[in-house]
Protein backbone atom coordinates (compact mmCIF):
# COMPACT_ATOMS: atom_id res chain seq x y z
CA UNK A 1 0.00 0.00 0.00
CA UNK A 2 1.50 3.32 -1.10
CA UNK A 3 1.50 6.27 1.28
CA UNK A 4 2.33 9.95 0.96
CA UNK A 5 3.29 11.47 4.29
CA UNK A 6 3.25 15.15 5.21
CA UNK A 7 4.79 16.13 8.54
CA UNK A 8 7.14 19.03 9.21
CA UNK A 9 8.83 17.76 12.35
CA UNK A 10 11.59 15.37 11.34
CA UNK A 11 11.20 13.46 14.57
CA UNK A 12 7.60 12.54 13.81
CA UNK A 13 8.14 12.18 10.06
CA UNK A 14 10.83 9.58 10.62
CA UNK A 15 8.82 7.87 13.35
CA UNK A 16 5.69 7.62 11.19
CA UNK A 17 7.71 6.37 8.23
CA UNK A 18 9.27 3.71 10.39
CA UNK A 19 5.95 2.72 11.87
CA UNK A 20 4.16 2.50 8.52
CA UNK A 21 6.99 0.58 6.94
CA UNK A 22 6.95 -1.87 9.81
CA UNK A 23 3.40 -2.67 8.72
CA UNK A 24 4.22 -3.13 5.05
CA UNK A 25 3.16 0.28 3.84
CA UNK A 26 5.37 1.87 1.27
CA UNK A 27 6.07 5.54 1.99
CA UNK A 28 6.55 6.84 -1.54
CA UNK A 29 7.04 10.44 -0.49
CA UNK A 30 7.42 12.26 2.80
CA UNK A 31 7.08 16.03 2.47
CA UNK A 32 7.78 18.58 5.19
CA UNK A 33 5.78 21.59 4.02
CA UNK A 34 2.38 22.60 2.68
CA UNK A 35 3.17 23.77 -0.85
CA UNK A 36 4.93 20.48 -1.69
CA UNK A 37 2.00 18.35 -0.54
CA UNK A 38 -0.54 18.96 -3.28
CA UNK A 39 1.89 18.24 -6.17
CA UNK A 40 3.06 15.11 -4.37
CA UNK A 41 -0.52 13.89 -3.93
CA UNK A 42 -1.37 14.54 -7.55
CA UNK A 43 1.84 12.98 -8.78
CA UNK A 44 1.77 9.75 -6.78
CA UNK A 45 -1.99 9.29 -6.35
CA UNK A 46 -1.23 7.26 -3.21
CA UNK A 47 -3.53 4.65 -1.72
CA UNK A 48 -3.66 6.85 1.34
CA UNK A 49 -2.11 10.12 2.52
CA UNK A 50 -1.22 10.82 6.14
CA UNK A 51 -1.15 14.57 6.64
CA UNK A 52 -0.34 16.88 9.55
CA UNK A 53 -2.81 19.77 9.78
CA UNK A 54 -0.21 22.37 10.57
CA UNK A 55 2.66 22.72 8.15
CA UNK A 56 5.16 25.37 7.11
CA UNK A 57 5.35 28.03 5.82
CA UNK A 58 2.33 29.54 7.59
CA UNK A 59 2.00 27.01 10.41
CA UNK A 60 -1.75 27.36 10.25
CA UNK A 61 -3.89 24.70 8.57
CA UNK A 62 -1.87 24.26 5.40
CA UNK A 63 -2.06 20.48 5.56
CA UNK A 64 -5.83 20.47 5.82
CA UNK A 65 -6.16 22.97 2.97
CA UNK A 66 -3.88 20.92 0.72
CA UNK A 67 -5.84 17.77 1.58
CA UNK A 68 -9.14 19.45 0.74
CA UNK A 69 -7.72 20.80 -2.51
CA UNK A 70 -6.40 17.38 -3.48
CA UNK A 71 -9.78 15.82 -2.84
CA UNK A 72 -11.39 18.32 -5.18
CA UNK A 73 -8.91 17.33 -7.91
CA UNK A 74 -9.08 13.62 -7.14
CA UNK A 75 -12.47 12.85 -5.58
CA UNK A 76 -12.28 10.17 -2.97
CA UNK A 77 -8.50 10.39 -2.55
CA UNK A 78 -8.09 8.79 0.88
CA UNK A 79 -6.59 11.18 3.37
CA UNK A 80 -5.95 10.72 7.07
CA UNK A 81 -5.37 14.05 8.81
CA UNK A 82 -3.36 14.09 12.01
CA UNK A 83 -3.24 16.90 14.52
CA UNK A 84 -2.19 17.68 18.05
CA UNK A 85 -5.65 19.00 18.79
CA UNK A 86 -8.97 18.25 17.15
CA UNK A 87 -11.58 20.73 16.02
CA UNK A 88 -15.08 19.58 15.05
CA UNK A 89 -14.99 22.41 12.53
CA UNK A 90 -12.14 20.77 10.65
CA UNK A 91 -13.90 17.42 10.81
CA UNK A 92 -16.94 18.93 9.15
CA UNK A 93 -14.82 20.47 6.41
CA UNK A 94 -13.15 17.15 5.72
CA UNK A 95 -16.45 15.28 5.64
CA UNK A 96 -18.33 17.84 3.61
CA UNK A 97 -16.61 16.78 0.40
CA UNK A 98 -17.82 13.93 -1.74
CA UNK A 99 -17.29 10.30 -0.81
CA UNK A 100 -15.46 8.66 2.04
CA UNK A 101 -11.86 7.87 2.61
CA UNK A 102 -11.24 10.54 5.21
CA UNK A 103 -9.87 10.34 8.67
CA UNK A 104 -9.13 12.85 11.39
CA UNK A 105 -7.18 11.66 14.38
CA UNK A 106 -5.22 13.10 17.25
CA UNK A 107 -1.53 12.43 16.89
CA UNK A 108 -1.71 10.72 20.28
CA UNK A 109 -3.49 7.81 18.60
CA UNK A 110 -0.30 6.65 16.92
CA UNK A 111 0.88 5.24 20.21
CA UNK A 112 -1.77 2.54 19.89
CA UNK A 113 -0.01 1.19 16.87
CA UNK A 114 -2.48 -1.54 16.03
CA UNK A 115 -5.52 0.76 16.10
CA UNK A 116 -3.67 3.45 14.21
CA UNK A 117 -2.69 1.09 11.43
CA UNK A 118 -6.28 -0.15 11.31
CA UNK A 119 -7.46 3.42 10.91
CA UNK A 120 -5.01 4.04 8.06
CA UNK A 121 -6.19 0.87 6.32
CA UNK A 122 -9.84 1.77 6.88
CA UNK A 123 -9.37 5.21 5.36
CA UNK A 124 -7.42 3.70 2.45
CA UNK A 125 -10.36 1.36 1.85
CA UNK A 126 -12.72 4.33 1.58
CA UNK A 127 -13.97 4.26 5.16
CA UNK A 128 -13.73 6.93 7.81
CA UNK A 129 -11.76 7.28 10.99
CA UNK A 130 -12.92 9.98 13.34
CA UNK A 131 -11.15 10.62 16.58
CA UNK A 132 -13.26 9.73 19.64
CA UNK A 133 -12.37 13.19 20.92
CA UNK A 134 -14.09 14.86 17.95
CA UNK A 135 -17.08 12.59 18.31
CA UNK A 136 -17.47 13.18 22.02
CA UNK A 137 -17.15 16.93 21.52
CA UNK A 138 -19.93 16.73 18.98
CA UNK A 139 -22.13 14.43 21.02
CA UNK A 140 -21.77 16.49 24.17
CA UNK A 141 -23.12 19.54 22.45
CA UNK A 142 -26.23 18.32 20.72
CA UNK A 143 -29.59 18.62 22.36
CA UNK A 144 -31.57 16.28 20.04
CA UNK A 145 -29.50 13.39 21.30
CA UNK A 146 -31.50 13.46 24.46
CA UNK A 147 -34.08 11.42 22.62
CA UNK A 148 -31.57 8.57 22.25
CA UNK A 149 -31.05 5.97 24.94
CA UNK A 150 -27.66 5.61 26.54
CA UNK A 151 -26.91 2.50 24.49
CA UNK A 152 -27.95 4.19 21.29
CA UNK A 153 -25.64 7.10 22.03
CA UNK A 154 -22.77 4.66 22.56
CA UNK A 155 -23.50 3.01 19.25
CA UNK A 156 -23.75 6.39 17.56
CA UNK A 157 -20.39 7.43 18.93
CA UNK A 158 -18.76 4.23 17.69
CA UNK A 159 -20.44 4.66 14.37
CA UNK A 160 -19.26 8.20 14.09
CA UNK A 161 -15.69 7.10 14.63
CA UNK A 162 -16.05 5.02 11.50
CA UNK A 163 -16.43 1.52 12.89
CA UNK A 164 -18.30 -1.23 11.14
CA UNK A 165 -21.23 -3.02 12.79
CA UNK A 166 -19.03 -6.00 13.54
CA UNK A 167 -16.40 -3.79 15.18
CA UNK A 168 -19.02 -2.00 17.25
CA UNK A 169 -20.51 -5.29 18.31
CA UNK A 170 -17.12 -6.53 19.42
CA UNK A 171 -16.38 -3.34 21.27
CA UNK A 172 -19.69 -3.15 23.12
CA UNK A 173 -19.98 -6.92 23.70
CA UNK A 174 -23.36 -7.30 22.03
CA UNK A 175 -24.47 -9.10 18.88
CA UNK A 176 -24.29 -7.57 15.46
CA UNK A 177 -27.99 -8.07 15.13
CA UNK A 178 -28.61 -5.94 18.20
CA UNK A 179 -26.30 -3.30 16.77
CA UNK A 180 -28.25 -3.02 13.53
CA UNK A 181 -31.41 -2.76 15.54
CA UNK A 182 -29.94 0.13 17.57
CA UNK A 183 -28.75 1.79 14.39
CA UNK A 184 -32.17 1.57 12.83
CA UNK A 185 -33.65 3.09 15.97
CA UNK A 186 -31.13 5.92 15.83
CA UNK A 187 -31.94 6.64 12.20
CA UNK A 188 -35.63 6.60 12.93
CA UNK A 189 -35.29 8.90 15.92
CA UNK A 190 -33.03 11.30 14.02
CA UNK A 191 -35.33 11.08 11.01
CA UNK A 192 -32.73 9.72 8.61
CA UNK A 193 -33.30 7.20 5.89
CA UNK A 194 -31.38 3.96 6.59
CA UNK A 195 -28.53 3.05 4.27
CA UNK A 196 -26.10 0.17 3.78
CA UNK A 197 -23.12 2.32 3.16
CA UNK A 198 -20.91 2.56 6.27
CA UNK A 199 -19.35 5.74 5.18
CA UNK A 200 -22.47 7.54 4.08
CA UNK A 201 -23.92 6.62 7.42
CA UNK A 202 -21.15 8.32 9.33
CA UNK A 203 -21.22 11.35 7.09
CA UNK A 204 -24.94 11.68 7.58
CA UNK A 205 -24.67 11.39 11.33
CA UNK A 206 -21.83 13.85 11.62
CA UNK A 207 -23.39 16.28 9.23
CA UNK A 208 -26.57 16.13 11.18
CA UNK A 209 -24.79 16.54 14.50
CA UNK A 210 -22.80 19.42 13.25
CA UNK A 211 -25.44 21.23 11.25
Amino acid sequence: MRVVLAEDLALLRDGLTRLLEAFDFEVVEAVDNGPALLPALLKYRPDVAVVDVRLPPTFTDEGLQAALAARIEVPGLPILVLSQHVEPLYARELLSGSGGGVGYLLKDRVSNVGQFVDAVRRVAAGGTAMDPEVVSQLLARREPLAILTGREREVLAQMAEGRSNAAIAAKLYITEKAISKHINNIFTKLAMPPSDDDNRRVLAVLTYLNS
Partner: protein
Amino acid sequence: MADNKDMETRSWVRHGLRAVAVGALEIVLSVFNVPLLVFWLVALALTPAAGIGMVALPLMTKVLRARTDLVRRLATGAGVVIARPYAPQPQPALTGGWRRFKWILTDPATWRDVAWLLPGGIIGAALGVLILLLPAYGLQGIILLPLWVHLGDVWYGYGVYWPIENFSEGLLSLPQGALFLAAGLIVAPQLRKVDALFAKLFLAPTRAAELRLRVAHLTVTRADTVDAQAAELRRIERDLHDGAQARLVSLGMTIGLAEELLDRDPAAARKLLAEAREASGIALVELRHLVRGIHPPVLAERGLDGAVRALAISMSMPVEVDIDLPGRPQTPVESAAYFVIAEALTNVVRHSGAQTAAVTIVYHDGTLAVVVLDDGHGGADPGKGTGLRGMERRLAAFDGTMTLSSPPGGPTVVTLELPCVLSSPKTSPSSATD
Protein backbone atom coordinates in the same frame (compact mmCIF):
# COMPACT_ATOMS: atom_id res chain seq x y z
CA MET B 1 41.03 68.37 43.98
CA ALA B 2 42.78 71.02 41.92
CA ASP B 3 41.58 69.28 38.81
CA ASN B 4 38.09 69.30 40.15
CA LYS B 5 38.19 73.00 40.81
CA ASP B 6 39.58 73.59 37.39
CA MET B 7 36.71 71.63 35.88
CA GLU B 8 34.19 73.64 37.87
CA THR B 9 35.72 76.90 36.73
CA ARG B 10 35.61 75.87 33.15
CA SER B 11 32.07 74.65 33.53
CA TRP B 12 30.64 78.00 34.74
CA VAL B 13 32.50 79.83 32.04
CA ARG B 14 31.15 77.44 29.45
CA HIS B 15 27.64 77.73 30.86
CA GLY B 16 27.90 81.49 30.85
CA LEU B 17 29.21 81.67 27.32
CA ARG B 18 26.49 79.35 26.09
CA ALA B 19 23.82 81.41 27.84
CA VAL B 20 25.21 84.58 26.29
CA ALA B 21 25.20 82.98 22.85
CA VAL B 22 21.64 81.75 23.28
CA GLY B 23 20.66 85.19 24.57
CA ALA B 24 22.03 86.77 21.39
CA LEU B 25 20.22 84.16 19.30
CA GLU B 26 17.00 84.90 21.18
CA ILE B 27 17.19 88.57 20.23
CA VAL B 28 17.33 87.63 16.55
CA LEU B 29 14.61 84.99 16.87
CA SER B 30 12.34 87.30 18.85
CA VAL B 31 12.36 89.82 16.04
CA PHE B 32 10.79 87.17 13.80
CA ASN B 33 7.94 86.61 16.26
CA VAL B 34 6.14 89.67 14.95
CA PRO B 35 6.00 88.67 11.26
CA LEU B 36 5.22 85.12 12.35
CA LEU B 37 2.21 86.36 14.31
CA VAL B 38 1.05 88.49 11.37
CA PHE B 39 1.42 85.67 8.84
CA TRP B 40 -0.33 83.17 11.06
CA LEU B 41 -3.29 85.50 11.58
CA VAL B 42 -3.42 86.19 7.83
CA ALA B 43 -3.37 82.44 7.17
CA LEU B 44 -6.20 82.02 9.66
CA ALA B 45 -8.18 84.75 7.95
CA LEU B 46 -7.55 83.07 4.58
CA THR B 47 -8.97 79.76 5.77
CA PRO B 48 -12.34 80.24 4.02
CA ALA B 49 -10.57 81.01 0.73
CA ALA B 50 -10.44 77.97 -1.53
CA GLY B 51 -7.04 76.69 -2.57
CA ILE B 52 -4.68 78.84 -0.55
CA GLY B 53 -6.79 78.53 2.59
CA MET B 54 -6.26 74.79 2.62
CA VAL B 55 -2.51 75.13 2.67
CA ALA B 56 -1.69 78.35 4.46
CA LEU B 57 -2.83 77.65 8.00
CA PRO B 58 -1.33 74.16 8.35
CA LEU B 59 1.89 75.47 6.86
CA MET B 60 2.07 78.51 9.14
CA THR B 61 1.18 76.33 12.11
CA LYS B 62 4.06 74.08 11.21
CA VAL B 63 6.41 77.08 11.17
CA LEU B 64 4.92 78.33 14.44
CA ARG B 65 5.45 74.98 16.12
CA ALA B 66 8.98 74.77 14.80
CA ARG B 67 9.58 78.15 16.44
CA THR B 68 8.08 77.17 19.80
CA ASP B 69 9.80 73.79 19.68
CA LEU B 70 13.08 75.66 19.34
CA VAL B 71 12.17 77.70 22.43
CA ARG B 72 11.43 74.46 24.29
CA ARG B 73 14.77 73.03 23.25
CA LEU B 74 16.63 76.14 24.32
CA ALA B 75 14.70 76.14 27.60
CA THR B 76 15.89 72.61 28.29
CA GLY B 77 19.43 73.94 27.91
CA ALA B 78 18.61 76.53 30.58
CA GLY B 79 17.40 73.81 32.92
CA VAL B 80 13.66 74.30 32.38
CA VAL B 81 11.88 71.34 30.85
CA ILE B 82 8.86 72.27 28.74
CA ALA B 83 6.94 69.28 27.38
CA ARG B 84 5.36 69.40 23.92
CA PRO B 85 1.67 70.06 24.49
CA TYR B 86 0.14 69.29 21.08
CA ALA B 87 -2.69 66.85 20.60
CA PRO B 88 -1.62 63.81 18.56
CA GLN B 89 -2.11 64.23 14.84
CA PRO B 90 -5.23 62.51 13.51
CA GLN B 91 -4.66 59.40 11.42
CA PRO B 92 -4.43 59.25 8.49
CA ALA B 93 -2.36 62.41 8.38
CA LEU B 94 -4.03 64.31 5.57
CA THR B 95 -2.29 67.40 4.28
CA GLY B 96 -5.56 69.16 3.62
CA GLY B 97 -9.03 68.55 4.78
CA TRP B 98 -11.26 69.60 7.58
CA ARG B 99 -9.80 67.09 10.08
CA ARG B 100 -6.48 68.81 9.91
CA PHE B 101 -8.00 72.23 10.51
CA LYS B 102 -9.99 70.90 13.37
CA TRP B 103 -6.89 69.29 14.82
CA ILE B 104 -5.03 72.61 14.68
CA LEU B 105 -7.80 74.96 15.76
CA THR B 106 -9.31 72.90 18.56
CA ASP B 107 -5.95 72.34 20.17
CA PRO B 108 -5.59 74.90 22.98
CA ALA B 109 -1.83 74.56 22.57
CA THR B 110 -2.09 76.27 19.17
CA TRP B 111 -3.75 79.34 20.67
CA ARG B 112 -1.35 79.42 23.57
CA ASP B 113 1.54 79.38 21.09
CA VAL B 114 -0.03 82.31 19.25
CA ALA B 115 -0.63 84.16 22.50
CA TRP B 116 2.99 83.70 23.46
CA LEU B 117 4.42 85.20 20.27
CA LEU B 118 4.18 88.88 21.23
CA PRO B 119 4.96 88.87 24.96
CA GLY B 120 7.45 86.06 24.43
CA GLY B 121 9.18 88.07 21.73
CA ILE B 122 9.38 91.19 23.89
CA ILE B 123 10.63 89.37 26.96
CA GLY B 124 13.03 87.27 24.89
CA ALA B 125 14.53 90.30 23.17
CA ALA B 126 14.71 92.35 26.36
CA LEU B 127 16.36 89.57 28.35
CA GLY B 128 18.67 88.87 25.42
CA VAL B 129 19.84 92.48 25.43
CA LEU B 130 20.25 92.35 29.20
CA ILE B 131 22.29 89.17 28.92
CA LEU B 132 24.57 90.76 26.35
CA LEU B 133 24.94 94.07 28.15
CA LEU B 134 27.11 93.10 31.11
CA PRO B 135 29.63 90.90 29.29
CA ALA B 136 29.83 93.45 26.51
CA TYR B 137 30.65 96.20 28.99
CA GLY B 138 33.21 93.89 30.58
CA LEU B 139 34.83 93.26 27.23
CA GLN B 140 34.92 96.95 26.59
CA GLY B 141 36.86 97.45 29.78
CA ILE B 142 39.36 94.78 28.84
CA ILE B 143 39.81 96.22 25.39
CA LEU B 144 39.72 99.81 26.63
CA LEU B 145 43.15 99.91 28.19
CA PRO B 146 45.10 98.88 25.12
CA LEU B 147 42.89 101.20 23.11
CA TRP B 148 43.52 104.06 25.49
CA VAL B 149 47.23 103.46 25.41
CA HIS B 150 47.08 103.35 21.67
CA LEU B 151 45.02 106.48 21.23
CA GLY B 152 46.68 108.60 23.90
CA ASP B 153 44.66 110.71 26.31
CA VAL B 154 41.52 111.25 24.26
CA TRP B 155 39.36 108.65 26.03
CA TYR B 156 36.50 109.20 28.46
CA GLY B 157 35.90 106.89 31.41
CA TYR B 158 35.13 103.37 32.59
CA GLY B 159 33.51 101.81 35.61
CA VAL B 160 34.05 103.88 38.74
CA TYR B 161 36.44 106.28 37.03
CA TRP B 162 34.64 108.83 35.01
CA PRO B 163 36.37 110.32 33.25
CA ILE B 164 39.70 108.53 33.39
CA GLU B 165 42.25 111.09 34.34
CA ASN B 166 45.53 109.25 34.34
CA PHE B 167 47.21 106.06 33.21
CA SER B 168 46.81 104.18 36.50
CA GLU B 169 43.07 104.79 36.51
CA GLY B 170 42.98 103.54 32.97
CA LEU B 171 44.94 100.51 34.01
CA LEU B 172 42.16 99.66 36.46
CA SER B 173 39.65 99.22 33.60
CA LEU B 174 41.26 95.82 33.02
CA PRO B 175 40.32 94.17 36.38
CA GLN B 176 36.99 96.02 36.38
CA GLY B 177 36.24 94.72 32.89
CA ALA B 178 37.17 91.21 33.93
CA LEU B 179 34.86 91.52 36.92
CA PHE B 180 31.97 92.76 34.79
CA LEU B 181 32.57 89.97 32.29
CA ALA B 182 32.62 87.34 35.02
CA ALA B 183 29.48 88.76 36.59
CA GLY B 184 27.84 88.79 33.17
CA LEU B 185 28.72 85.18 32.58
CA ILE B 186 27.38 84.19 35.98
CA VAL B 187 24.15 86.12 35.61
CA ALA B 188 23.48 85.10 32.01
CA PRO B 189 22.25 81.52 32.76
CA GLN B 190 19.93 82.93 35.45
CA LEU B 191 18.45 85.41 33.01
CA ARG B 192 18.04 82.64 30.45
CA LYS B 193 16.18 80.71 33.07
CA VAL B 194 13.82 83.61 33.64
CA ASP B 195 13.14 83.71 29.91
CA ALA B 196 12.54 79.96 29.83
CA LEU B 197 10.20 80.11 32.82
CA PHE B 198 8.22 82.85 31.15
CA ALA B 199 7.97 80.74 27.99
CA LYS B 200 6.85 77.81 30.09
CA LEU B 201 3.79 79.77 31.21
CA PHE B 202 2.53 79.65 27.63
CA LEU B 203 4.23 76.76 25.94
CA ALA B 204 3.92 73.94 28.48
CA PRO B 205 0.92 71.64 28.32
CA THR B 206 -2.10 72.65 30.36
CA ARG B 207 -3.38 70.11 32.87
CA ALA B 208 -5.96 68.93 30.33
CA ALA B 209 -3.35 68.63 27.60
CA GLU B 210 -1.09 66.74 29.96
CA LEU B 211 -3.87 64.27 30.65
CA ARG B 212 -4.63 63.98 26.95
CA LEU B 213 -0.98 63.26 26.19
CA ARG B 214 -0.94 60.75 28.99
CA VAL B 215 -3.98 58.99 27.53
CA ALA B 216 -2.32 58.92 24.11
CA HIS B 217 0.84 57.49 25.64
CA LEU B 218 -1.13 54.86 27.54
CA THR B 219 -3.05 53.89 24.42
CA VAL B 220 0.18 53.25 22.59
CA THR B 221 1.84 51.36 25.41
CA ARG B 222 -1.28 49.30 26.03
CA ALA B 223 -1.43 48.28 22.38
CA ASP B 224 2.26 47.45 22.55
CA THR B 225 1.70 45.37 25.64
CA VAL B 226 -1.18 43.47 24.11
CA ASP B 227 0.87 42.83 20.98
CA ALA B 228 3.83 41.67 23.00
CA GLN B 229 1.66 39.38 25.10
CA ALA B 230 -0.02 37.87 22.07
CA ALA B 231 3.35 37.26 20.46
CA GLU B 232 4.58 35.69 23.65
CA LEU B 233 1.59 33.35 23.89
CA ARG B 234 2.05 32.40 20.25
CA ARG B 235 5.68 31.60 20.91
CA ILE B 236 4.77 29.42 23.86
CA GLU B 237 2.10 27.59 21.84
CA ARG B 238 4.61 26.99 19.05
CA ASP B 239 7.28 25.80 21.43
CA LEU B 240 4.87 23.37 23.04
CA HIS B 241 3.45 22.16 19.76
CA ASP B 242 6.79 21.55 18.10
CA GLY B 243 8.62 20.62 21.25
CA ALA B 244 7.27 18.69 24.18
CA GLN B 245 3.96 17.75 22.55
CA ALA B 246 5.65 16.32 19.47
CA ARG B 247 8.19 14.51 21.64
CA LEU B 248 5.43 12.87 23.62
CA VAL B 249 3.66 11.78 20.43
CA SER B 250 6.90 10.35 19.16
CA LEU B 251 7.45 8.70 22.51
CA GLY B 252 4.05 7.05 22.38
CA MET B 253 4.72 5.91 18.85
CA THR B 254 8.05 4.40 19.76
CA ILE B 255 6.63 2.58 22.77
CA GLY B 256 3.66 1.39 20.72
CA LEU B 257 5.95 0.03 18.06
CA ALA B 258 8.10 -1.63 20.66
CA GLU B 259 4.99 -3.27 22.08
CA GLU B 260 4.12 -4.65 18.65
CA LEU B 261 7.64 -5.96 18.13
CA LEU B 262 8.02 -7.46 21.59
CA ASP B 263 7.20 -11.00 20.45
CA ARG B 264 8.46 -10.88 16.91
CA ASP B 265 11.76 -9.11 17.46
CA PRO B 266 12.68 -8.57 21.14
CA ALA B 267 16.07 -7.05 20.31
CA ALA B 268 14.51 -4.35 18.14
CA ALA B 269 11.86 -3.74 20.80
CA ARG B 270 14.53 -3.24 23.44
CA LYS B 271 16.31 -0.76 21.23
CA LEU B 272 13.07 1.15 20.73
CA LEU B 273 12.45 1.24 24.45
CA ALA B 274 15.89 2.68 25.10
CA GLU B 275 15.16 5.28 22.48
CA ALA B 276 11.86 6.05 24.19
CA ARG B 277 13.52 6.58 27.55
CA GLU B 278 15.96 9.00 25.98
CA ALA B 279 13.14 10.86 24.24
CA SER B 280 11.24 11.25 27.51
CA GLY B 281 14.35 12.85 29.01
CA ILE B 282 14.64 15.27 26.13
CA ALA B 283 10.95 16.15 26.42
CA LEU B 284 11.46 17.00 30.07
CA VAL B 285 14.45 19.19 29.31
CA GLU B 286 12.45 21.03 26.68
CA LEU B 287 9.57 21.56 29.07
CA ARG B 288 11.95 22.86 31.68
CA HIS B 289 13.43 25.37 29.23
CA LEU B 290 9.99 26.46 28.22
CA VAL B 291 8.90 26.95 31.81
CA ARG B 292 12.00 28.99 32.46
CA GLY B 293 11.11 31.15 29.48
CA ILE B 294 7.61 31.77 30.84
CA HIS B 295 8.43 32.38 34.46
CA PRO B 296 11.71 31.13 35.84
CA PRO B 297 11.12 29.04 38.97
CA VAL B 298 13.97 30.76 40.76
CA LEU B 299 12.20 34.09 40.18
CA ALA B 300 9.09 32.69 41.83
CA GLU B 301 11.08 31.26 44.72
CA ARG B 302 13.69 33.92 45.38
CA GLY B 303 12.41 37.03 43.67
CA LEU B 304 14.42 39.39 41.50
CA ASP B 305 17.40 39.28 43.82
CA GLY B 306 17.94 35.53 43.61
CA ALA B 307 16.90 35.26 39.98
CA VAL B 308 19.39 37.88 38.83
CA ARG B 309 22.13 36.23 40.89
CA ALA B 310 21.25 32.90 39.30
CA LEU B 311 21.32 34.55 35.90
CA ALA B 312 24.74 36.06 36.61
CA ILE B 313 26.16 32.67 37.58
CA SER B 314 24.90 31.12 34.35
CA MET B 315 26.63 33.73 32.19
CA SER B 316 29.78 32.81 30.33
CA MET B 317 31.64 35.82 31.78
CA PRO B 318 32.02 37.10 35.33
CA VAL B 319 29.06 39.29 36.22
CA GLU B 320 29.22 41.36 39.37
CA VAL B 321 25.88 41.69 41.09
CA ASP B 322 24.99 44.41 43.57
CA ILE B 323 21.40 44.37 44.73
CA ASP B 324 19.78 46.43 47.44
CA LEU B 325 16.06 45.72 47.54
CA PRO B 326 14.16 46.15 50.80
CA GLY B 327 11.26 44.02 49.50
CA ARG B 328 9.78 42.43 46.40
CA PRO B 329 8.07 44.30 43.59
CA GLN B 330 4.76 42.95 42.30
CA THR B 331 5.11 39.81 40.23
CA PRO B 332 4.50 41.37 36.78
CA VAL B 333 7.00 44.15 37.45
CA GLU B 334 9.50 41.69 38.83
CA SER B 335 9.09 39.51 35.78
CA ALA B 336 9.45 42.44 33.37
CA ALA B 337 12.59 43.62 35.15
CA TYR B 338 14.02 40.12 35.15
CA PHE B 339 13.50 39.51 31.44
CA VAL B 340 14.85 42.90 30.48
CA ILE B 341 17.97 42.29 32.59
CA ALA B 342 18.29 38.83 31.06
CA GLU B 343 17.99 40.32 27.58
CA ALA B 344 20.53 43.02 28.42
CA LEU B 345 23.02 40.41 29.69
CA THR B 346 22.41 38.24 26.63
CA ASN B 347 23.21 41.26 24.47
CA VAL B 348 26.40 41.79 26.45
CA VAL B 349 27.49 38.22 25.75
CA ARG B 350 26.46 38.30 22.11
CA HIS B 351 27.51 41.71 20.91
CA SER B 352 29.75 43.65 23.27
CA GLY B 353 32.93 41.58 23.38
CA ALA B 354 33.10 42.43 27.08
CA GLN B 355 35.33 40.66 29.62
CA THR B 356 33.14 41.46 32.60
CA ALA B 357 29.73 42.91 33.29
CA ALA B 358 27.95 44.27 36.32
CA VAL B 359 24.33 44.52 37.39
CA THR B 360 23.25 47.00 40.02
CA ILE B 361 19.71 47.12 41.38
CA VAL B 362 18.58 49.73 43.85
CA TYR B 363 15.22 51.03 44.99
CA HIS B 364 14.56 54.58 46.03
CA ASP B 365 11.75 57.11 45.78
CA GLY B 366 9.31 54.50 44.51
CA THR B 367 11.53 53.59 41.60
CA LEU B 368 13.38 50.42 40.87
CA ALA B 369 16.59 51.41 39.16
CA VAL B 370 18.70 48.85 37.35
CA VAL B 371 22.06 49.47 35.73
CA VAL B 372 23.66 46.88 33.47
CA LEU B 373 27.22 47.78 32.64
CA ASP B 374 29.88 46.09 30.55
CA ASP B 375 33.46 46.80 29.54
CA GLY B 376 32.97 45.90 25.90
CA HIS B 377 33.57 47.89 22.76
CA GLY B 378 30.30 49.84 22.88
CA GLY B 379 28.58 51.16 19.80
CA ALA B 380 25.23 49.51 20.52
CA ASP B 381 22.53 51.12 18.40
CA PRO B 382 18.99 51.15 19.77
CA GLY B 383 17.71 51.47 16.20
CA LYS B 384 19.32 48.19 15.27
CA GLY B 385 17.59 44.97 16.05
CA THR B 386 14.32 44.36 17.83
CA GLY B 387 15.84 43.32 21.15
CA LEU B 388 16.17 46.79 22.61
CA ARG B 389 12.78 47.80 21.27
CA GLY B 390 11.27 44.71 22.88
CA MET B 391 12.91 45.64 26.18
CA GLU B 392 11.46 49.13 25.96
CA ARG B 393 8.03 47.73 25.27
CA ARG B 394 8.17 45.39 28.21
CA LEU B 395 9.07 48.26 30.50
CA ALA B 396 6.63 50.73 28.96
CA ALA B 397 3.77 48.52 30.11
CA PHE B 398 4.69 49.55 33.65
CA ASP B 399 5.65 53.15 32.81
CA GLY B 400 9.24 52.07 32.97
CA THR B 401 11.94 53.57 30.82
CA MET B 402 15.22 52.40 29.42
CA THR B 403 18.20 54.48 28.44
CA LEU B 404 21.20 53.22 26.57
CA SER B 405 24.60 54.81 26.54
CA SER B 406 27.08 53.07 24.31
CA PRO B 407 29.79 55.30 22.87
CA PRO B 408 32.18 53.64 20.43
CA GLY B 409 34.94 52.10 22.51
CA GLY B 410 32.54 51.51 25.38
CA PRO B 411 31.53 51.12 28.07
CA THR B 412 27.90 50.26 27.39
CA VAL B 413 25.49 51.23 30.14
CA VAL B 414 21.85 50.20 30.08
CA THR B 415 19.75 51.95 32.69
CA LEU B 416 16.22 50.86 33.53
CA GLU B 417 13.79 52.73 35.72
CA LEU B 418 10.56 51.14 36.84
CA PRO B 419 8.16 52.92 39.14
CA CYS B 420 6.72 50.36 41.52
CA VAL B 421 5.92 49.60 45.13
CA LEU B 422 7.68 46.91 47.06
CA SER B 423 5.11 44.58 48.55
CA SER B 424 6.59 43.26 51.75
CA PRO B 425 9.85 43.89 53.50
CA LYS B 426 12.26 41.02 53.48
CA THR B 427 11.55 39.10 56.67
CA SER B 428 14.01 36.29 56.39
CA PRO B 429 17.29 35.68 54.67
CA SER B 430 16.66 34.26 51.22
CA SER B 431 18.36 30.99 52.09
CA ALA B 432 15.62 30.25 54.59
CA THR B 433 13.00 29.89 51.88
CA ASP B 434 14.36 26.54 50.73
